């Protein structure tokens, strides 16, 4: 019906990134401006920053009315209630944002922040309770890999059916069959029922299919945590390639370190609201710091970090950074270890190797036995080449429990100079030395 352009929903600016002009947060719809805590000026200009919007989310709220379950009223057609019912939890609360054509956007936030609801709404699976969503073009969701597969049926049969779900015609599927099967790497098992497949094979088959659809918009939800290392690497490459070809990509993941190489822009949700929107180098460290403070607030008195010092405090990508500090424990902290915090997450940083973007996670804990021995430790750790692209970061020391929960951290601002392209050629290497001081 609305086959033509709808120019009133295009945000200002033309496509292409002429390097001139100040970089700013894109307009967030004509209705109202989203509140940001603070809008930092990014140091580089990501691609498609000013592209016309291909996804417009305007004043969208979403709630689930559980009172209606089993009532005839719920089954009647017609407009649902305009006000959220009392006591309802708003999965999205008056969220507004636009996503430009060709952008690669990561959505972050804690569990229950509304990330998955936002993806479901953009995928068109469900309608907003309030507000409006406009999406230009077709959407392929890689929300669940192996989507709609029937375990009794062969890989081939399942591919055919799922292709239909993704809007691929039989003719198009036949043309891309070779590519899809090649990418999935399950050619040998194509005639076996998918119940005999491993979860990795299912994931590969599903991803291969979804990533070969014609959709203009690709939604990725936690795909980055499925499958083995090789599959993750290839799927990340594939997502990047799709984005380079001009597809808009939206990625939801808790794996923050995977986002900077994939995304031009990060939107942070909290309790269904957009609380931050900007380049990864701005939004992710802010988010990590805020989260760390939450933990630190109910941290314990058994461990302290002091005298944290960075050398130098501003450095080029790939440069050398030395972190110094003192960690003091009054009791052995079982299950804990000390780590270097770099940029975002612990010493967990994404590393890009070579041109075609090998993404890998590096976890380099400091070899301090704080889990066995109380004491006061003087720590000095050197990151040989910093795996961060240009932007404002933090670096310092942290103590984490069970590899994930932060007990305490102390970080200092770190400024990475230069341009994002340098990022591509970096490897990380951590050197450290520490000595026990007398308590």
């Amino acid at each position: 019906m609305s086959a033509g352009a709808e120019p009133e929903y295009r945000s200002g600016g033309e496509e292409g990134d002429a390097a001139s002009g100040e970089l700013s947060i894109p307009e967030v719809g004509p209705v109202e401006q989203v509140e940001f805590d603070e809008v930092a000026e990014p140091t580089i200009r990501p691609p498609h920053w000013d592209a016309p919007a291909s996804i417009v989310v305007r004043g969208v709220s979403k709630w689930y009315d559980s009172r209606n379950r089993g009532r005839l009223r719920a089954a009647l057609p017609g407009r649902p209630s305009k006000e959220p019912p009392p006591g309802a939890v708003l999965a999205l609360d008056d969220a507004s944002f636009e996503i430009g054509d060709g952008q690669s956007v990561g959505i972050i936030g804690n569990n229950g922040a509304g990330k998955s609801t936002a993806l479901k709404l953009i995928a068109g699976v469900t309608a907003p309770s309030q507000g409006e969503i406009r999406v230009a073009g077709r959407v392929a969701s890689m929300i669940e890999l192996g989507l709609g597969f029937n375990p009794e049926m062969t890989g081939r049969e399942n591919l055919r059916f799922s292709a239909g779900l993704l809007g691929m015609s039989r003719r198009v599927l036949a043309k891309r069959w070779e590519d899809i099967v090649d990418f999935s790497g399950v050619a040998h098992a194509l005639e076996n029922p998918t119940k005999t497949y491993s979860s990795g094979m299912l994931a590969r088959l599903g991803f291969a299919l979804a990533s070969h659809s014609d959709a203009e918009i690709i939604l990725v939800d936690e795909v980055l945590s499925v499958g083995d290392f090789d599959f993750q690497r290839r799927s990340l490459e594939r997502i990047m390639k799709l984005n380079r070809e001009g597809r808009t990509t939206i990625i939801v993941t808790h794996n923050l370190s995977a986002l900077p190489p994939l995304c031009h822009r990060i939107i942070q949700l909290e309790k269904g609201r957009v609380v931050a929107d900007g380049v990864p180098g701005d939004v992710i460290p802010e988010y990590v710091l805020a989260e760390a403070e939450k933990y630190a607030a109910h941290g314990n008195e058994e461990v302290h970090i002091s005298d944290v010092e960075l050398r130098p405090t501003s450095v080029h990508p790939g440069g050398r950074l030395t972190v110094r500090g003192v960690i003091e424990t009054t009791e052995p902290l079982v299950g804990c270890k000390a780590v270097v915090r770099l940029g975002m997450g612990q010493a967990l940083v994404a590393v890009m190797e070579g041109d075609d973007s090998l993404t890998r996670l590096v976890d380099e804990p400091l070899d301090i036995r704080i889990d066995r021995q109380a004491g006061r430790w003087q720590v000095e750790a050197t990151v040989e080449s910093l795996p961060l692209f240009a932007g404002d970061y933090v670096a310092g020391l942290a103590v984490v429990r069970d590899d994930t929960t932060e007990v305490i951290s102390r970080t200092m601002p770190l400024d990475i100079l230069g341009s994002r392209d340098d990022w591509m050629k970096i490897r990380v290497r951590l050197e450290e030395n520490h000595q026990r001081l007398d308590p």
Partner: protein
Amino acid sequence: MEAPSRPQTPAPVALQRWTVLRPGSSKRPWASAAATRELLWESAARELRGRYKQNVGKGVWMLVQPIAMVLIYGFVFTQIFKATGHGLPYLSMAWAGIICWQFFQHGVQIGMFSVIFEAGTLSKVWFPRVVVPLTPGTAAFADLGLGFVVLFLVATVQGVSIGITAVALVVPVAMLAVWMFALALLLAPLAVFLRDLTSIVPLLLRLGFFASPIMYSVFEIPEQFSWLATWNPVAVAVTGVRDAVLAGVWPDWRLIGIHAVAGLVLLAATYTYFTRVEDRLVDAL
């Protein structure tokens, strides 16, 4: 580098069709009739394949249930209630009734459950969702077709000479299909909101089985209940099929026509209903 088999590079936003989602009314330009039809075929083929995948006999199993029903109910109706074919061979008559009933019941009952069964897929990706409740009925055409082949064989063995009027069977079958799809489109979303229906509807269908002239001839219906034969689309369709195939007369066009028109009106209404509530289905699943 861009081989023709690769996904096309997307067109600029200005050339795209926009999906608009609003509470209560959404606009989705992507469900072309052709794509929906293709998906429906694929989906029905998938149901059939899935149903008989693990069975050695494959197609033979399609017939096992109706054969068992004819044997059991046939015994009860002929030996205890003394039902007869009223001029038609009983076995052929009952078989004609059974295959039509199985067709109708499968499409309505499994159609009702279909949205609940497909909850996982529906809540993860959007596709023309109307395909889901229509799939069981579409797949049931295969069983019906096989049933008719058997009917022709059995009828010939029983000495029925099948004439030109047999071609008319498509008309009552089409009328029955319209009612089946209409009810599936109504019940599938209703059952999501009102789960009690999943217990009530099978019960009502069981009742409908005995209230319709499936295992007995329409002529067995007593005078005071004759409205059961004229107001019940299943009865009208089954009688139409029997007339055309077994009795060698043209079916009652007027009665079938009235039911066909009523069924089409209902189909239009329930299709509209489905499209009006489909956006809310996922939230209730």
